[in-house]
């Protein structure tokens, strides 16, 4: 591991200024992703700025009926908060579906959103990876691509975003509060993570030194109160998603009045299934309608073929996951 210095500033503005002035500095929160990458040599910062003392660990009520989650709130505390469990069940369910008890105790809300892809080549500096270094190629195309994207990928990168929490936040239209060198700003979560395009080195729209200070959940709607998270993985626990879905649904007299669907494990960012949502609004809450809606969304899918394992299996897997989750929320057997 390359040597680095360690700083623990008392003020968020100091942390932001330190990073803004030093391209080789990184924020440290729970360390569960960063420490792994330091050991692997995926990132080699010369300075770590510990943000655990300057990011809030509180969950507070907003005037509009929503909740503000401090960036320092541990994942386990967020999932256990009675208000979150009752008003935003998809958020609690998404966190609980990820990692392990120990990791959720350590991981922060901010760090969770900023975690990097689990693409095996990204984590292995001996293999080419455009996300690590723009001058290299992508080893996953034609390589081990089972976990990779079917939507919104580019020729440069087919990685998926690994966060479960982020998928639920996208379904619920959360807002990310950010402090940058030029002051504070708010970024809608759907615009926070990027598609790879021609610069896969950037996972989010944040500039170097931008500090996530909080995540705001909007006041719950009836659909959000009737929301959940379904994750499909290679084993029952302690594994990243093959595919996942955060779904919120309100049905009145058999008709879909409100629906939100966000997909995990399919793209470089949590994928809001707006085509499927539009197809369902005002339609009968039946399996046939659910199936047609997700089929419309997946028309744009481009599975990757590879001798080492492709990902075409994700199309039927996403379809079944979304249909059965919608059916469960509509009162049927999930």
């Amino acid at each position, binding site marked *: 591991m390359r*040597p680095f210095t360690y700083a623990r500033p008392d003020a968020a503005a100091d942390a932001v200024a330190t990073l803004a002035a030093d391209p080789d500095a990184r924020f440290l929160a729970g360390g*569960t992703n960063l420490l792994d990458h330091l050991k692997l040599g995926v990132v080699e910062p010369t300075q770590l700025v510990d943000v655990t003392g300057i990011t809030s660990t509180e969950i507070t009520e907003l005037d509009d009926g929503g909740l503000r989650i401090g960036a320092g709130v541990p994942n386990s505390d967020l999932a256990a908060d009675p208000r979150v*469990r009752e008003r935003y069940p998809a958020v*609690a369910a998404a966190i609980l579906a990820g990692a*392990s*008890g120990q990791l959720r105790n350590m991981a922060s809300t901010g760090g969770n959103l900023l975690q990097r892809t689990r693409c095996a080549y990204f984590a292995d500096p001996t293999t080419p990876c455009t996300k690590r270094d723009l001058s290299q190629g992508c080893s996953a195309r034609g390589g081990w691509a089972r976990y990779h994207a079917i939507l919104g990928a580019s020729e440069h990168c087919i990685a998926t975003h690994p966060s479960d929490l982020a998928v639920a936040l996208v379904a619920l239209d959360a807002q990310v509060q950010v402090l940058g060198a030029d002051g504070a700003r708010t970024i809608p979560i759907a615009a926070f993570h990027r598609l790879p395009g021609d610069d896969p080195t950037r996972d989010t729209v944040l500039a170097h030194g931008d500090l996530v200070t909080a995540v705001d959940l909007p006041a719950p709607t009836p659909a959000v109160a009737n929301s959940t998270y379904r994750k499909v993985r290679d084993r029952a626990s302690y594994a990243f998603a093959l595919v996942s879905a955060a779904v919120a649904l309100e049905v009145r007299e058999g008709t879909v009045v409100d629906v939100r669907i966000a997909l995990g494990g399919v793209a470089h960012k949590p994928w809001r299934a707006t085509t499927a949502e539009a197809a369902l609004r005002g339609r009968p809450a039946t399996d046939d309608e659910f199936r047609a809606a997700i089929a419309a969304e997946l028309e744009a899918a481009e599975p990757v073929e590879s001798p080492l394992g492709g990902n075409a299996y994700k199309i039927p897997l996403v379809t079944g996951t979304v249909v059965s989750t919608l059916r469960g929320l509509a009162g049927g057997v999930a």
Partner: protein
Amino acid sequence: MTTTIPMSITVDGERHDLDVDPRTTLLDALRERLGITTTKKGCDHGQCGACTVLLDGRRVLSCLTLAVAKDGAHVVTADGLATDGELHPVTEAFLANDAYQCGYCTPGQICSAVGAIDEARRGMPSAVTADLAADVTLDRSEIAERMSGNLCRCAAYVNIVSAVEEAAHR
């Protein structure tokens, strides 16, 4: 040249002052600097749970924790769970249920179980909790889910679940 940083840490009730290279993990500080080898290194990447300790009362992975970030913290390893020469109820239950084979994962399993039982008592839900808004009962499926971050290469899982079940219902 790396500069070291002075820090202190209390492990199993005993305070230690040391200078650490900022790169030192809590796990390496325990094992290599303080000679406390109860806590085991399996993967060193957060994937196996062998290095689990209780940090200020919560179960965490010491291999993904920087020592320097935990200045002043209280760490309890599987060794420090005993009080006045009496084994902790979880440790007792591991013995009574033969919940290990080689024993390498055991200190991490025991610390994790202590943390998991405490989390359930505080009402924290898990992925298999049927009603997220209701209280938690630690049945076998809850225990298996809550202990999933601790791998056992000897696959002593069945008896580990029994041990945790027994300790939880004392």
